[in-house]
């Protein structure tokens, strides 16, 4: 029943994103419309893939660092991506793929640094050190970014931040195809980690006693979640909130077992972002809202409702 409901919500969100938009396209002409085929369809798909990936990364990272405040950008990724994008602009790299690629490289760089710092105490990845390293690397990258912005005189830099605050206006079949090729591997790694993550929730020592390969598991989850998030940043900037709240919302419905939780988070995140992007495009047409604002405006009331129901039980 829950699955049917979530499935219906996801399908409705996706269809809504295709049917609704600032331009009026009659229902009969939907399939023939260039606007629908070239703009709305890839954008709806991208919203779904990015929202699902962010929520899934969030669920995985929350389990990994055993901290409910963890989200995909906690571990320094947004700072690294921002630095990459700003460097690309400051160096006047003009190709349309320069910005996403630079953001991706920046996010990977931050991930590598955080990972290395997480290993400082020895060969084991310590979740507490990981969080601190993430915050430190993020703050450092943000400081360097601000320094570049304040010293450079390119007016374009202000617009770089607009891009970085997230949005799906860069959606095209190219970006969808790119994610379609890239996503399956990290997605599969995370889905496969569902059972061991349940054990990890008991604590590292008990998990080890129950036969989980704790160290490789932590590395796999961290790297897969980071790779997912880095790809999302590259195609849509930093879209907040989805990765933090959707996993919690799904936990109120499906409990703490990761086998159902992870796919539910993927569907829920995809639905939330597709719905939010539709609102962002339609609500103040002809203008457009930043989608991150809408994810919070739509997501928080839903989350509050679920939280109330959950605490009442």
């Amino acid at each position, binding site marked *: 029943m829950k699955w049917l409901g979530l499935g219906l919500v996801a399908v409705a969100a996706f269809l809504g994103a295709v049917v609704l*938009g*600032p*331009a*009026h396209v009659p229902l009969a002409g939907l399939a023939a419309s*260039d*606007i629908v085929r*070239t*703009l*709305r369809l*890839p954008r709806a798909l991208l919203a779904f893939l990015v929202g699902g990936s962010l929520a899934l990364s969030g669920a995985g990272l929350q389990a990994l660092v055993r901290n409910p405040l963890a989200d995909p950008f906690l571990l320094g990724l947004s700072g690294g991506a921002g630095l990459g994008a700003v460097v690309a602009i400051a160096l006047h790299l*003009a*190709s*349309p793929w320069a*910005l996403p690629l630079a953001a991706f490289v920046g996010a990977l760089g931050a991930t590598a640094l955080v990972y290395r710092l997480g290993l400082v105490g020895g060969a084991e990845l310590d979740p507490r050190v990981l969080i601190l390293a993430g915050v430190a690397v993020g703050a450092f990258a943000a400081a360097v970014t601000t320094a570049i912005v304040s010293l450079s*005189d390119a007016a*374009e830099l202000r*617009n770089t931040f*607009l*891009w970085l605050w997230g*949005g799906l*206006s*860069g*959606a*095209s*079949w*190219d970006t969808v195809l790119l994610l379609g090729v890239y996503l399956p591997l990290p997605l599969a790694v995370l889905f496969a980690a569902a059972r061991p993550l349940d054990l990890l929730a008991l604590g590292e020592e008990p998990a080890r006693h129950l036969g989980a390969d704790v160290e490789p598991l932590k590395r796999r989850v961290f790297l897969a979640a980071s790779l997912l998030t880095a790809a999302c940043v590259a195609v849509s900037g930093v879209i907040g909130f989805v990765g933090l709240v959707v996993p919690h919302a799904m936990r109120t419905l499906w409990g703490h077992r990761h086998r159902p939780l992870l796919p539910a988070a993927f569907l829920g995140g995809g639905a939330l972002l597709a719905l939010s992007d539709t609102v962002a*495009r339609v609500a103040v*047409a*002809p*203008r*457009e809202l*930043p989608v991150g604002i809408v994810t919070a405006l739509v997501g928080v009331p839903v989350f509050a409702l679920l939280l109330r129901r959950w605490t009442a039980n």
Partner: protein
Amino acid sequence: MERRHSLRSHTIRLVALAAALACRPADRASRPPRDAGYTVRDDAGRTVALAQPARRIVSLSPAVTELLFALGVGDRVVGRTTWCDYPPPARLVPSVGDGLNPNLEAVAARRPDLVVLYRSPLNETAAAQLGRLGIPAAVLRQDRLEDVARAARLLGRLTGRAAAGDSLADSLTRLLETGVPAAHTGLAFVVWDNPPMVIGGGSYLDQLATLAGAANVFHDIGAASATVALETIATRDPDVIAVVSDSAEPRPPAFARRREWRVIRAVRERRFVYVVGSLFGRPGPRAGVAAAELRRLLGQVKR
């Protein structure tokens, strides 16, 4: 009663203090403090009173620099921003920074008797701080053609060139009032591609489009600029897309190569005009030149 009295005496003391502060530059110049000729109310509602025409001016915006040169007092500009590149002699003036968040020490080091700033909250704070240093500062709005006309009038007063300022203002106002034939060319100014940002009705570029005999297809958006969806641009279907570029050699924008942008007819048909930021990006005395240039560029595209 007692209390009200003390309050009043306190007020009197404050007024006296303010008057003393205001008189300080005047004392130095040994001139009568009130001279309506060099007193104006700026766009932040502050009174700017000079004892004599400004002789050492720091201009913290390119449009003001252009205006001062147009009024024939370019030789009195002793400080400018890094953006002030027109007219060419302006480049010989020492730069005091980018003008966005002024470095007050660098400004004060030029020993100005007038500082002119673009109106923004940050600059209003800076103007107040300059006031505390005893340096008169005027904050002027420079977003639309009307603002330029008003700025010309005010700067004319402050520099003792009231006649020149008024005549420049009148010519700019006439430009706005001249009837322009009904527009047939739909124009969209695309200033950024991801997210797509266009110029709205509350902007100087929108006014220039009208003066050039074209219609901004996003005229109904009241803001100066706005983020829109690609499908909105496609539906508004502009005949021509204007791209603001800083480089001298115009080339098609990077987004022209992207598949999703080709939903827009003007992108498919490569109907672009390239307008230079230093002429089109800032409202100034060259508005008429800019409008004529835009009209010429649009004429080339149609052929």
